[in-house]
């Protein structure tokens, strides 16, 4: 499992997915090719399911494009752990079913090469020899995350109600 460490603050959506591709790439495989291209051009080739990203404050600021959250979910990133997240990105991650963990203490404690493990059910992240707890999402968002994103959540509700659209 890889841990990608990007300690800087304010990593914006253009760094996570360049705007010039936003209207020509929309599927997981298309997005993967350019994911984090201007931040770390080696990311796309290295990332594996179960990997973790650790970053600073205001991760995902800028545009409302969902390619970063959709792409990270598609390549199987288990969680992004950051000191804080930008609002639209946070919301988008819930909509994609991507786990975000806001834990400035865990980010501060992390040193290059330290093992990192995430236990979403327990609300805990382990960094090296220490365990940090993170607050659970509000119920409304947790339900969306557990259903694997907003559209799966909507499908489930409509199926349960026997609705057409």
């Amino acid at each position, binding site marked *: 499992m890889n841990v990608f460490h990007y300690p800087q*603050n*304010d990593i*914006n*959506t*253009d*760094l996570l997915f*360049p*705007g*010039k591709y*936003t*209207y*020509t790439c*929309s599927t997981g495989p298309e997005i993967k090719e350019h994911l984090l291209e*201007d931040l770390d051009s080696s990311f796309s080739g290295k990332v594996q399911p179960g990997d973790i990203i650790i970053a600073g*404050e*205001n991760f995902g*600021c*800028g*545009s*409302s*494009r*969902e390619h970063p*959250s*959709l792409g990270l979910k598609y390549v199987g990133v288990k969680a992004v752990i950051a000191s*804080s997240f*930008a*609002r*639209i990105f946070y*919301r*988008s991650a819930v*909509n*994609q079913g991507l786990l975000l963990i806001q834990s400035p203490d865990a980010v501060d404690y992390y040193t290059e090469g330290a093992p990192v493990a995430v236990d979403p059910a327990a609300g805990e992240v382990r960094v090296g020899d220490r365990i940090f707890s993170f607050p659970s999402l*509000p119920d*409304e*968002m947790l339900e969306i995350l557990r259903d694997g*994103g*907003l*559209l799966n959540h*909507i*499908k489930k509700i*409509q199926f349960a109600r026997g609705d*057409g*659209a």
Partner: protein
Amino acid sequence: MGETFAIKILSRAAGKKVSEGEIVFVEPDYILTHDNSAAIIGKFESTVPGGRVRYPGRIAIVLDHVIPAASSTHAAGHKKVRDFVREQGITNFFDIGTGVCHQVMPEMGLVKPGSIVVGSDSHTCTYGAFNCFATGIDRTEAAGIWITGRTWFKVPETINIELTGGFNAGVSAKDLILTIVGDVGAGGANYMAIEFNGPAVGGLRISDRMTIANMGIEMGAKIAVFPANILTSKYFEALDIKITDAVWSDHDAEYARTLEYDLEEIIPVIACPHQVDNVVPVEDMAGMKIDQIFLGTCTNGRVEDLKTAADILRGQRIHSGVRMLVAPASREEYLKAMNMGIVQDLVSAGAVVLPPGCGPCLGAHQGALAPGEKCLSTANRNFKGRMGEKEAEIYLSSPETAAVSALTGKIRDPREVLK
């Protein structure tokens, strides 16, 4: 204790008294999407195959980001959108050339004081200029709202920004909001609402308020909002819309923070690469050679901005070492500028006029930068790679600074010219 704008408007929408931090479900008055509608249609159709949108009358679609289509892939996206709006009976569809979505939405009367609008574009917060609770969402959520008609919000805390005084010559709303972004920081208003209050608010034109509200997101804000006043009423009277639902905070509303700005103390500033909160006085950057100037966007592409530039450039030539691109924010603004002779002035001075739309702001077409080039832009973002090339540099300024710099091909303090 009194209540903020955010508490009041979300209480009304939720049909109950709400408090900060609470999650509420609301049905937005409008859902805006643009070229990204093509991808949203894909999500909609895979979630509810053969389904109908819940409220066709609440959907607004503006093609503005890559117009006219830069490639057959873009063209196929536009075609998909045109077919979909016909099939679904979506009448608030505005095809290429109408303008940038954030200019078109108010022009078409789809943004009203006291309303709630979401858009799959981060600069949807622009409508705060019209006393609207307006914020950005992603494509997936837009598809979800097309299906269900509703979404959720966490009731935000509010930062109060008190404005006094008036601008000196050569200084404008863009300098104010860049100064504020520099002070608050790129994440300083994350998840929060921003209210603009104080005696100077009444003196800000609608175009100024739009420039300011537009950049609320550059501090992470959920909304950035102004009270409705006489200028707001006049704007909507011209559209034959009566304001009935305007909302504003109580005098004793409780704020997380209050910041005060005296407009007389604001000086021309510039946001340097590669962050919007990297703000310095223009005089510190004076003399730096630039390759391209871009006047336009949802931040500064209105007739007031074009006139500012034309007044500076009239009868003169843009420096041979720099190219200047101008994109009017909408067809309406373009026509106004034509009728006032502004387009004539800009083109005579050597500017290249682009169709009303987002132009080179997002780096997908029209005026992309070469490696190593520097662009002075009136847009709202200077992120690395934003204009299509990660080895290029983008500097953000007011229309005044952009226009005076066009004459020398170097960054220049507008107060040298405007006195």
